[in-house]
């Protein structure tokens, strides 16, 4: 039995239930890095190339945290997860494409890295093939891998169902793995409904965005994110744009935001973005313009970086909420 480390950032928020189940069904132990802390961020900022965005730096920090505690680091090279986009070439941000190489060259004393290439646009069986290759690296047999794959798919399906029931990935994972028969979160009366869109690693990592989700909850805001929408709902928005984005996460954020713009009862949209994020330079302005053109829905963009402080975010969010309430009461 070997220990496999999975960094708790980037694609963690979408693929963790699948891979945790898969590895454990193969009899491996999965070690997750803790939620981001100041120390993890500092290591990441120190080790990663200085021009990288904060999520990439955090990833370096998480890997460094795991380095001496595990036998393998799970850092797949995410190339595509579906055939989508105007030319069917939807992929991930170039930093995701180069991530295993960046990590390997930036950090010393790393255990073996499982950097299997995940390119699912080619066909339905691709994911199983990826699993087979990962399983072989760990010295597992074909039948075991198939069994584990099936189990993982099942858990992944349950995970997605929970998301569609408006749980955040963090809540859904707690329900699946910690056996918390959830407690529907204390839904006191809802004052406002806000869609929070952006990349999963920016929205759900409470350290990087200074706990914005909690802050909203305290303000009696019901939060929706793009991950609570089905692919079908989201992809309907693709046709309303001159050209889709090239990046999976960006498309989800854009489609999700466009969907919520037309959704009745949504009072405002908050876009969380990382400082100097390349794709978001397009995404953010696009959403800003579209939110005005489509429904005149209030739109707030929050850029986070390694210097983000809680007070700054709180001030901006409170001002936004005040504005929304004022707008509603006037209507």
């Amino acid at each position, binding site marked *: 039995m070997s220990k496999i480390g999975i960094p708790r950032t980037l694609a963690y928020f979408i693929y963790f239930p699948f891979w945790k189940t898969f590895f454990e069904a193969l009899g491996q132990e999965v070690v997750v890095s803790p939620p981001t802390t100041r120390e993890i961020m500092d290591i990441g900022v120190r080790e990663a*190339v200085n021009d990288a965005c904060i999520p990439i730096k955090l990833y370096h920090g998480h890997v460094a945290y795991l380095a001496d505690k595990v036998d393998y680091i799970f850092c797949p090279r995410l190339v595509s997860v579906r055939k989508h986009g105007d030319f069917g070439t939807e*992929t991930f941000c*170039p930093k995701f494409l180069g991530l*295993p190489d*960046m990590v390997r060259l930036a950090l010393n004393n790393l255990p073996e890295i499982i950097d299997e290439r995940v390119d699912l646009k080619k066909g339905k069986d691709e994911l199983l093939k990826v699993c087979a290759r990962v399983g072989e690296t760990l010295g597992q047999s074909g039948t075991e891998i198939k069994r584990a794959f099936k189990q993982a798919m099942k858990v992944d399906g349950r995970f997605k169902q929970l998301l569609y029931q408006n749980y955040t990935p963090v809540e859904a994972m707690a329900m699946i793995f910690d056996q918390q028969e959830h407690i529907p979160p204390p839904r006191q009366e809802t004052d406002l409904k806000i869609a929070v869109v952006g990349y999963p690693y920016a929205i759900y990592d409470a350290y990087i965005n200074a706990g914005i989700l909690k802050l909203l909850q305290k303000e009696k805001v019901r939060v929706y994110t793009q991950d609570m929408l089905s692919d079908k709902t989201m992809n309907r928005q693709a046709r309303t744009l*001159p*050209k889709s984005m*090239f990046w999976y996460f960006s498309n989800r954020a854009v489609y999700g935001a466009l969907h919520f713009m037309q959704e009745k009862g949504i009072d405002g949209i908050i876009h969380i973005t990382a400082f100097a994020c390349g794709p978001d*330079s397009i995404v953010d302005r696009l959403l800003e313009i579209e939110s005005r053109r489509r429904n005149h829905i209030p739109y707030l963009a929050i850029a986070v970086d390694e210097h983000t402080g809680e007070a700054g975010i709180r001030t901006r969010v409170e001002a936004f909420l005040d504005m929304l309430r004022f707008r509603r009461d006037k209507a």
Partner: protein
Amino acid sequence: MKISFPHMGYSYIAFKWLVENMGHECIIPPEPSKKTLDLGVRYAPEFACIPFKMLLGTYLEVAEKGAEVILTSGGMGPCRAGLYWVMHQYLLDELNTGIKVVAFEPPLCDLRDFLKKLHWIRKTGGLSLKAFIQVLRITWEKIKAIDEVEMYSHEIRPYEINRGDTTRSLWRALDMLDVANNEMEIKMALQEGIKLLQQIPQDKSRNPLKIGIIGEIYVVLEPAANHYIQIMLGEMGVQTDRSIYLTAYTRKNTIVNLEGDIFSVAKPYLAEAPIGGHGVNSIGETLLYAKHGFDGVVQLAPFACIPEIVAKSILPAISRDHGIPVLTLFIDEQTGKAGVQTRLEAFVDLLEKRRQYKATHKNARLVV
């Protein structure tokens, strides 16, 4: 129709000819200036890269002069340049310029759309298919000739005795190419231009340092964006080889094309290709420059350019393994000419010392 296009190095000479000979009116894009950049920065998203901002500024400038249509390129990603035209169109609409951006997507991705746009541009200009193809051919010859003289100028500039001679002759050569109207005239203008450059008084006893220029296409090709880095280095007495020319893939005589597939060269350091833009190329090209005995490499990239950040994170390892110093310059609207010059001078000094040291200590293993 009044047509304009992005300004990228000296290629505007050929594209101007193309637009005019397709039966349209050409609004020549001005060389990007402080004003261009200011305009672009004012309306562009904050974190857009500098090519985006310069192009937006250029479009706003040509809009003032009455341009109706902008011809540009699309892309299939994952570099965001493929989405420029979308965002430019949004912003130009917001500013009520009335400009339409027509982007040619890669024909391999969408051949139908590509041909449709070509057809449209031909019909509105009123050209027969035969004449249209002929015009395209001559334009291509022109671009090749422009690249040729420019390439040659970078080769001889470090030998010039009177500073500025080469650049002045280059301009005269380009002027001659500008007025050439058919293949014969282009050929003659090219010959004349090369001759002009050859006649410059030179000191052939010099042994200039050799530096490879790699990076993102726009800041590499547009001298106004990279603060005329090749001229600057040439006048410091450095021979530069640029990895990107518009016509590079048809050439056999450039270092970068000698080795075949650049992606396989880069493979030991980056196992994925392409990653958008010229990210993988930058890695492969650095390896090639090291192999061909260059003294150093300068990486040019816009601030926050995603593929080049990936490349930058990998370059130190290549630098260490192959003993080739790399200077990365990230360019944004805050970059000043003096800053670039200071850093280049320091880099060149370092390379000089390094070369001397290597010459005196034959067996020394140099750590960069």
